[in-house]
């Protein structure tokens, strides 16, 4: 596919690409004018690969994941660019077409499992309904499959649980049920939007481990969206950092942490308190606040909060460029950090 400007050719021609997001933008009509929540985002996910999307609130990560899923409201939303999933163009696709993809090839795990499960429908039916729809199973086959799914996600006494209502389960169990629902028809792509944010620390670790083991077993692609760098740090192949609707840095996970180029990424890492740091260490917050997305901007969106910003940063928007040291590392910055590392590897 050659119609992917802004994308690395080696990435776009890779046959094993499952999802190709190309110059995707999503704009909302609001009271205060149009709001470009996702702004010209491009990336590729290969089969079996995990991409972490990290960003603070308002960075557009949630809207991006919904855009990929094609689940945005119809009115007041403008989607541009192209999102090709497994050979199908998602942008502008009618619901009729999407229904064959939703649940069957692409599934989503949402943030709040209590809100994601229908409170008055038994767990069993919430799992079996997509099985019966997509795989055409009869009632007993669907039930048997649901049972084995519950076992796979580690729910004790799954048989009884099929007849339970969501409120009878704990938070962690509910999220396991959500995962079972999402995995029911063996999708090729799983979008997990803040899947552990409301959960306790010890449960969060369980759920993330479960997700990554299932992902390996099924050779599924996963998009893990989180505000927490810690969540994505150890379980992804690549990480995309979003700020003000744009992907500002994207790289293989290890590369990102070892040689981050975008000052925002570094600031994000530095502002997070760490267990390994001594107590009372002064944190380095990012001063100011993210830009108002409804007003037109000039230059880099992070420039007003960036300590390295120059006049150029404030007037010209930096494009997403490939790092000279690593073809898989791309960033949008005029004054990247770690210029030494570029020199080293070239």
């Amino acid at each position, binding site marked *: 596919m050659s119609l992917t400007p802004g994308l690395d050719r080696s990435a776009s021609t890779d046959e094993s690409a499952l999802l190709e997001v190309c110059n995707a933008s999503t704009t909302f009509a609001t009271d205060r004018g149009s709001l470009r929540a996702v702004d010209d985002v491009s990336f590729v996910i290969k089969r079996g690969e995990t991409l972490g999307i990290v960003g603070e609130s308002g960075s557009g990560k949630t809207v991006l994941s919904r855009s990929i*899923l094609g*689940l945005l409201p119809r009115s007041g939303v403008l989607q541009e660019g192209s999102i090709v999933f497994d050979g199908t163009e998602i942008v502008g696709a009618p*619901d009729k077409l*999407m*229904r*064959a*993809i*939703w*649940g*069957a090839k*692409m*599934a*989503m795990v*949402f943030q*709040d499992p209590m*809100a*994601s*499960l*229908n*409170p*008055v*429908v038994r767990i069993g039916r919430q799992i079996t*309904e*997509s099985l019966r*729809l*997509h795989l055409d199973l009869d009632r007993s086959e669907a039930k048997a499959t649901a049972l084995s799914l519950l076992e796979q996600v580690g729910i004790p006494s799954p048989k009884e649980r099929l007849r339970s*209502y969501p*409120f*009878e389960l704990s938070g962690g169990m509910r999220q396991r049920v*959500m995962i079972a*629902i999402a995995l029911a028809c063996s999708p090729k792509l799983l979008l997990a939007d803040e899947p552990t944010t409301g959960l306790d620390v010890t449960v969060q670790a369980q759920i993330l481990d479960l997700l990554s083991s299932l992902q390996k077993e099924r050779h599924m692609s996963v998009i893990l969206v989180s505000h927490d760098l810690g969540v994505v740090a150890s379980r992804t192949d690549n990480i995309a950092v979003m700020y003000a609707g744009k992907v500002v840095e994207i790289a293989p996970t290890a590369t990102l942490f070892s040689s981050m180029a975008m000052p925002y990424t570094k600031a994000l890492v530095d502002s997070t308190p760490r267990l390994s740091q001594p107590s009372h260490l002064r944190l380095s917050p990012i001063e100011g606040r993210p830009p108002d997305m409804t007003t037109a901007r000039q230059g880099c969106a992070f420039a007003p909060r960036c300590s390295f910003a120059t006049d150029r940063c404030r007037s010209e928007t930096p494009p997403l460029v490939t790092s000279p040291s690593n073809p898989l590392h791309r960033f949008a910055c005029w004054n990247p950090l770690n210029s030494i590392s570029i020199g080293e590897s070239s």
Partner: protein
Amino acid sequence: MARYLVKRFFALLGILFFISLGAFFLIHLLPGDPTVTILGPSDNAQNRAALTSQLGLNLPLWHQYLVWIGNVLQGNLGESYITHESVSRIISTAFPIDLELIIISQLLALSIAVPTALASAKRPNGLLDRTSTTTSFALLALPPFILIVFFVLIFSIYLHWFPGPGSYIPFTQNPGQNLRAMILPSIVLAIGSIVIYFRILRGDLISTLQQEFITVARSKGLSNRYIMWRHALRPSSLALLASAGLNISGLVAGAFVVEYLLALPGLGYEIVNSINQVDYLTVQGITLFVAVVIVLVNFVIDFLFTVVDPRITRE
């Protein structure tokens, strides 16, 4: 669930007790002398005193209450001071009319309100939604008595489609005639309910459709129709049920007005006449009966709540 219902049941018994007190004291604390009603204003004091003690009206109020409630518990609601017909009999002939009226009107109301609400909520601010919301708004401002006045004028007097007031025939005598006489009052009564049900259900459906679990249902590839009926309707019907419980009292009131205006000899007609004739025991008896029915309907609704939302029994 059983424990929840038992708990509700005992709460209802308590409510019933207070209602019996209410029905009794409401009537007895008010001015008015039944002996005047029965004997006429010109009778002498001696007869009046005799009748007072015969009716037990000389006893202290609480004693009168105990006598009355004792009889009621044995199924004896007393008899009318005027016609000497037993109150239970008055109720048993009048109540089927209310029942028929309410059942027909509610079936009518639900069969119109639910599909309209589902269709409207699918596209809020769409053409259908705006039309039906505006219509419901107009209907909300049409009191039953105005509707009746103009319906009678148009459909009975000008068009002769339906019989006019006072043409009630019991169902057992002539089902066809009976239904013809009931259509007009049922429609009038239904209109009020349609508006309430439509507005509540539409509002709840719209907020349910914004819930995450609806997005999840869509992300499973389920059809919109399936999502509306299987995922959205049930969690949205709680407020509808609750309003039906509150509405029942208003419905009875509406039925009473409609009956009185169209001279349908139901409970409403009877009670207004009894009140005008200061017929204590009949008013008391019918009030108690109606209150008990309302309480029982609410008990059924409480049960339906547990069917619609399993969370309720376990709080």
